[in-house]
């Protein structure tokens, strides 16, 4: 055993209270929380403005351009909506999983799976009656995305495999699968060696409403559906209980594993629909970029919107405005359209940081207190 205590040394180090402590705070009201979040967005925009200043431009003109870039003509607006559709739908899909605290990072792969399944019918059965073809493609995307979402859930249920990492891997497998299809069995014979998949026949393309592919209508419907599902159905209730505590769920007679499987199927299925709307509504073909990173942005949108379907509607719209407006930055200012990503990132950093202040606060050492 070591020698006795030399207290004076220890006393020296521990004389004062710590400089800063973190403690939990009492619950804030909804009003306070909303104001706090709004404040963080404002701060973020200011930070973004500073970034713009640093690179030598006027933040106000830049922001104004971004905004107008999305709305200045009906074509611009249509383009904005086009961007919004897959983002909105996959955010809703991701939300379902996230509500259950199942960290589905695989939206990208599920979008692709849905697109692939739907594209099969678009490419090889384009002679079917249009309405039937649409329904079948729709159903196929649901099944494709759903199955792809089910895989990680099965492994989690059976072996407790980490879903974050597993879904991540599945993304890349799916991505490469499209490349395989594009270069192999589904290669367009008429492309003259250039790797691509054939353009969908008009019959296999989504109809338009107000000049935009009807994906936006599908998106709105799904928004409402997810809202109703989560709030008013028995399934939704089970999710709200199981996400908090498996023990309580079992006490209520629920089966947490079954709930997980069901929810992940739906989550993947909705993302699959996003894939179908992109392929048959915008790209008019199956491209390797059918997901194009939307699966990841969807996670951010879902998080920003607090997993609230109507919030997602608003946030995905705003993100799309940002995205479309930023593409205008190139022509107007010579600024790369990557600025959208930068601004998105800054906004989210601030919101993430502000989340802390909802639940906790800093306590500073009072001056003069030993």
């Amino acid at each position, binding site marked *: 055993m070591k020698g*006795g*205590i030399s*207290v004076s040394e220890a006393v020296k180090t521990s004389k004062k209270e710590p400089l800063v402590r973190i403690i939990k705070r009492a619950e804030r009201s909804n009003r306070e929380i909303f104001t706090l979040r709004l404040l963080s967005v404002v701060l973020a925009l200011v930070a973004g403005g500073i970034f713009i200043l640093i690179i030598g431009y006027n933040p106000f003109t830049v922001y104004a351009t971004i905004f107008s870039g999305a709305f200045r003509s009906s074509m611009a607006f249509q383009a904005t909506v086009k961007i919004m559709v897959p983002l909105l739908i996959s955010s809703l899909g991701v939300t379902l999983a996230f509500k259950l605290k199942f960290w589905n990072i695989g939206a990208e792969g599920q979008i692709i799976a849905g697109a692939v399944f739907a594209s099969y019918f678009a490419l090889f059965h384009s002679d079917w009656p249009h309405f039937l073809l649409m329904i079948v493609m729709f159903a196929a995307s649901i099944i494709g995305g759903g199955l792809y979402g089910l895989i990680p859930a099965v492994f989690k249920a059976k072996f407790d495999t980490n879903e974050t990492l597993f879904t991540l891997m599945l993304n890349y497998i799916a991505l490469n699968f499209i490349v395989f299809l594009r270069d192999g069995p589904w290669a367009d014979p008429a492309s003259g060696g250039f790797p691509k998949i054939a353009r969908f026949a008009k019959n296999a393309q989504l109809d338009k409403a107000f000049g935009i592919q009807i994906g936006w209508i599908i998106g709105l419907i799904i928004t409402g559906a997810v809202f109703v599902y989560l709030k008013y159905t028995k399934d939704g209730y089970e999710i709200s209980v199981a996400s*908090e505590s498996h023990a309580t769920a*079992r*006490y209520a*007679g629920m089966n947490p594993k079954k709930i997980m499987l069901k929810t992940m199927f739906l989550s993947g299925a909705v993302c699959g629909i996003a894939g179908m709307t992109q392929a048959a509504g915008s790209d008019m073909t199956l491209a390797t970029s059918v997901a194009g990173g939307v699966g990841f942005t969807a996670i951010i949108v879902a998080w920003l919107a607090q997993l609230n379907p109507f919030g997602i509607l608003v946030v995905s719209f705003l993100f799309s405005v940002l995205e479309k407006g930023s593409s205008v930055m190139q022509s107007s200012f010579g600024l790369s359209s990557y600025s959208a990503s930068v601004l998105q990132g800054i906004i989210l950093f601030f919101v993430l940081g502000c989340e802390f202040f909802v639940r906790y606060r800093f306590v500073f050492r009072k001056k003069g207190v030993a």
Partner: protein
Amino acid sequence: MKNKGLAIECTGITKTFGAVIANDNINLSVNFGEILALLGENGSGKTTLMNILSGIYHQDSGSIKIAGDEVSINSPADSIALGIGMIHQHFKLVDIFSAMDNIAAGTPGKLKKKSVFKKEIIDISEKLGLKIDPEKKIYNMSVSEKQTVEILKVLYRGARILILDEPTAVLTPQETDSLFAILKKMKEDGCAIIIITHKLNEVLAISDRVTILRKGKSIETVITSETNEKQLTELMVGKPVSLSIDRPVPENVEQLLNVYHLSVTKEDGTVGLEDVTFDINKGEILGVAGIAGSGQKELCETIAGLIPIKKGAVLYNKENIIGKTPKEIIDLGISMSFVPEDRLGMGLVAPLGMVDNMLLKTYKNGRGPFVDRAPAKELAERLVKKLKIKTPSVETPVRMLSGGNVQKVLLGREIESEPNLLITAYPVRGLDINSAYTIYDLLNEQKKKNAAVLFIGEDLDVLLELADRIMVLCHGKITGIVDAEKITKEQIGLMMMGHEYEGGNIGE
């Protein structure tokens, strides 16, 4: 080297958490070369006090002197630097590390050569008669071995003041003897030791002095050789208080539930319940007394069908319910309103409002995929009025309600299902007087409706006045089933400490 005089001197330690006063002006002192036993029920404040000494909390007011010098302990590192070694009840070890690695982690200086370090550890352990395999991984160790690692951890860091929190709770009698031999050696070596325990026989066996805490206050400190179990129990539970709780005479008493030789193992492998046999009758309240962790949780969970058992049977209306799913058990009319330590664990879903929590067992009713919230809303509003539940609205998340109101919500829901057997644990914890009486009235109401009520409580005064019979659990065993009208508070206290009741159990 200081090994005489006061090791720790706490004066006027006060710590509040919100509205709860955990430590109320507590005084405590330990000398070097002495073993002090700290005695107190759950909620007496001993855990908070120890956490303050080990640097996890900081006191609101009051001073601490270590070896005569006033100090401010702001973190576990400070506590360790002061020579305080805390051995927690729930071990803080890294499972995949070996004993050596756990002992080395956090110590200053470079990593020592394996052979050198190993020898150091074995030297320390042999001096005290501790057995250890330094290279063994924690996840391969028995509970007693893990405790040895915890002890070595603090000794290696030069701890001269040891605090052990319920160290014998997980040990066999032989292991307890070994531990005590070690503690005696350390005392002779000049260490100051505080041991927190419920076991009176151990207090009398190993300690020099005893400090008793009750409801956040330090009640008294006595010299062990001058006291006895009776006096200690009295100090721990306090004098009986008359509460004027109604106790209707049980009518139509017939057996509803029979528990036969039930044995259950806890999650961590230790004994939960051991060979428990008793029955509950319709139209009566069976109170369950016992120190927290004596098996109450396991009893509730077994009857509710939530955990597997080792052996035994639970007969409900002559039908064994072991193996049934929770849903099936609920359908039989057994309702459980178990309020665990963290209140919003089982039974209630924190982020949901009252209405949604009312739905927990009935959400499947009604055809179609939609949940019918109307009856739940009506129930919620009814309960708010009847039980005077303070909530901004019936949709407010229940985690925002104060503890007492949460309990009302939970109990209210369970009673609503008109159960035949109502199991409720700590239903009045944290409640103000009026709310508590409302709960007692509710329970009596059920009793008059001929339901059987299993009431697990911590306030002995309440149990003595509300229950018809009282069953006492200690370390998973029944130490007595007695008539509440005829037993004394002191006798219950003794049973809680492990003394078996000599007068013959009622209804076994």
